[in-house]
């Protein structure tokens, strides 16, 4: 227990990194995922095919392998951003595939009558999607999106073996130095992750309640 308290600043610094990775990749993957979902339902075959192909490949690849390809592949194509940026990129590209699927099932869940009415009013695909379908779809996909974001929080831990000194890295170092305090250290750091997860879940429930449509 004292080990935990003695090293608190290191652990908190690690969590700061974890949180920034989560916040940035979360936001970017929500955006990219929605774009991908739009691509998958669009009338343009190329976009549909690319979207489907991307999602299929990414969803079936382990995150670790994505990290390897980004962290070691980017320098090979000439770009050398910081390791934090590379981690965020890998996490975004990975999570966006799952966001896409969630949003797409949300789009499918919107009553067909809505889209039909939009079409009969002469709206284009872009307008139908943007003004009518997506806003309703997003309301119903809050629970799966919350699950995806929780998974993202945990996935940030993988970055500890790809150059990012996050909370998992701090834990790994501390366990090596103080093997007798494994329990205290583990539960202490786990508590941090749980705090983040519970906050996300709580915010999700709040959002759901505000968005629920009383029929």
């Amino acid at each position, binding site marked *: 227990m004292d080990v935990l308290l003695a090293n608190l600043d290191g652990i908190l610094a690690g969590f700061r990194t974890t949180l920034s990775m989560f916040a940035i990749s979360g936001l970017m993957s929500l955006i990219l995922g929605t774009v991908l979902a739009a691509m998958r339902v669009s009338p343009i075959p190329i976009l549909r095919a690319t979207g489907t192909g991307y999602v299929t490949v990414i969803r079936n690849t382990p995150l670790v392998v994505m990290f390897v390809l980004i962290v*070691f592949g980017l320098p090979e194509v000439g770009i050398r951003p910081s390791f934090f940026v590379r981690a965020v990129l890998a996490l975004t590209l990975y999570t966006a595939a799952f966001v896409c699927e969630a949003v797409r099932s949300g789009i499918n869940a919107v009553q067909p009558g809505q889209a039909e009415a939009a079409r009969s009013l002469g709206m284009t695909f872009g307008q139908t999607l943007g003004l009518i379908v997506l806003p309703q779809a997003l309301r119903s996909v809050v629970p799966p999106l919350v699950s995806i974001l929780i998974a993202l929080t945990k996935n940030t831990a993988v970055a500890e*073996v790809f*150059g990012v000194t996050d909370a998992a890295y701090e834990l790994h*170092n501390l366990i*090596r130095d103080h093997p007798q305090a494994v329990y205290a250290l583990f539960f202490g750091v786990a508590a941090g992750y749980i705090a983040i997860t519970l906050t996300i879940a709580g915010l999700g429930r709040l959002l759901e309640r505000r968005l629920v449509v009383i029929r």
Partner: protein
Amino acid sequence: MRLRRTFALATATVLALGLAACGGDDDDTSAPPVATGTQFPAGSTMAALNTAQSIKIGVKYDQPGVGFLNPETNENEGLDIEIAKIVAGALGIPEDKIEWVETVSANREPFLQAGTVDIVVASYSITDERREVVGQAGPYYLTGQQLLVREADKDRITGPDQLSGIKVCSVTGSTSIERVEQDYGAQPVPFATYTECVQQLLNNSVDAVTTDGSILLGYAAQQPDDLEVVGDAFSEERYGIGYKHADTAMCEFLNETLTKAFTDGTWKTAFDNTLGQSGAEAPQPPTLDPCT
């Protein structure tokens, strides 16, 4: 705690001649002798192992030249492996009866304490803290933490004192990465293996890689025009053989075996076949610690 500079320089120049493809050449012609008819004290670990005709040895799988599992031949190779074979031979156990177990840095003590392995020969530095929980005989090789940099940087980064704010790569959870961060103010970049670190060094994402000089020399020798090991060793790593705590008889046996290997040339052969594959000269064998 400073390594003799002459030793470090000698090893550096001599090994920089280029390590052949990761210690690939095997050593059929110089397999360590298997002792026959040796009497071990009754009830000792050595007697038990000799009777069982099998031994479990903890080694590294991912350190070229030191302890490495060749993914193609599925054979273990490296200096640690050769030393382990010498010990097994002295116990009267032939090579094919050795069971190799991968011991990553963190589980060397737990595995010894639980009896999962009988001895550990895995770039296992002797420290007082470790000697409180396990036994360590040796050292059989001396090295220390050093820096690997790109050829172009060898004048800019000449030692640990120039590391402030510099991105330095090492393995997650290793003592090397902690030391450069805490003692020298470097920016730590943790990765899973040293090869990944070297890769990031070569593609300019980090400016130095740090770990035991023996491991760095292996990489530098593979690409002598691109990489260079710089600076004196800023820690002392004395590789020892781990065994179960307080087994004094085992300690004496290991010391005897090592002394014999130092004097009868098998230690030198082991070195020549692994870290010395480039044609480098083996250093002088180190002085053994007494058994306490």
